[in-house]
């Protein structure tokens, strides 16, 4: 079998003749439309958070009853801003990670960098979410002192659980992304060797 014969065998692939292109095209356009819609809703949610949540938290931070309450709400406002910023970073890097039309090596480098940044972001999630949790702990301290001991303990337990869940989720996502990054790096090193 010569090289042309190999190519003839290759192009006789049965899959090449069985598609309904109109269906695929509609599915592609629908997926793109739905991704744009999701993007729009995320932006709307971010605007609502910035427009409503942050001012409310800042109001409590300024006019709260005691220093504990004011400190708690200040931390929560700061934490909310940090979470929104992290969310914006994540979406930016996700867009950067989408495959483009550069050569394969450049695309793998770009993808590796974006995935590595996302992994770091998830790994450090407990740190940049910390102000929200610490703020809630301070509010819990106020509840414990001024309202009810049980209520204080309940709030602390809830905050502690949420922080642990946040840490575990972030760590698990970071681990998956790190694995993917090592796969990308091994692909990239193969391309570099071939170069």
């Amino acid at each position, binding site marked *: *079998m010569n*090289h042309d014969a*190999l*190519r003839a*065998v*290759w*192009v*006789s*692939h049965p*899959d*090449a*003749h069985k*598609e309904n*292109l109109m269906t*695929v*095209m509609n*599915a*592609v*356009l629908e*997926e*793109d439309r739905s991704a744009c819609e999701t993007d729009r809703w995320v932006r709307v949610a971010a605007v609502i958070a910035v427009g409503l949540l942050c001012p409310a938290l800042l109001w409590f931070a300024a006019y709260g009853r005691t220093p504990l309450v004011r400190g708690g709400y200040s931390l929560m406002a700061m934490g909310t801003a940090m979470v929104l910023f992290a969310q914006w970073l994540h979406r930016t890097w996700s867009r950067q*990670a*989408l*495959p*483009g*039309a*550069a*050569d*394969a*090596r*450049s*695309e*793998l480098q770009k*993808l590796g960098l974006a995935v590595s940044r996302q992994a770091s972001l998830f790994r450090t999630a407990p740190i940049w979410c910390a102000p929200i949790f610490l703020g809630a702990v301070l509010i819990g301290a106020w509840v414990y002192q001024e309202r009810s001991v049980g209520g204080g303990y309940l709030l602390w337990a809830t905050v502690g659980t949420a922080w642990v869940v946040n840490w575990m989720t972030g760590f698990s996502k970071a681990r*998956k992304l790190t*694995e*993917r990054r090592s*796969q*990308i790096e091994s*692909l990239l090193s*193969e*391309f570099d*060797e*071939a*170069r």
Partner: protein
Amino acid sequence: MAQFGCLMEAYAGPIRRLCGAYASRSADREDLFQDIFLAVWRALPSFRGDSSERTWLYRVAHNVALSWQTRDRRRSSRETALQGNLEPSDIMDLRRLALNQAVAAMSPTDRTLTLLWLEGLSAIEIEEVTGIKSTNVAVRLSRIRKHLSPVEVST
């Protein structure tokens, strides 16, 4: 939209074959096929005609396929690529099966080069798609062709 339709019409076959080399299960192949054309649709506004339409489309397609391969939920796809679904009925099918299996067993770089070569791209065009120098592409392809000679023997 019309340009996208024309691209799909013209390149559906080659892209199907590329998907076949990366994914074993029919659902995965459909998924990858759709992902590739979604990326093409999104990249189309930035196509300025600096390179030929064909190399541009192959660049997008291979980038999507390589990225797809690194996603953990589908990591096992390559190892089993095209072993279960084909039922050879004639000599052409047997040859195709042997060729598919040989391509699926290659390293990602060799597989990319082989797929592009099998689709009829020149070494210069392969350089444009992969970023590997055309001289090295030629050397590597000659080694790959030797590696593919048992395919002939087996059929």
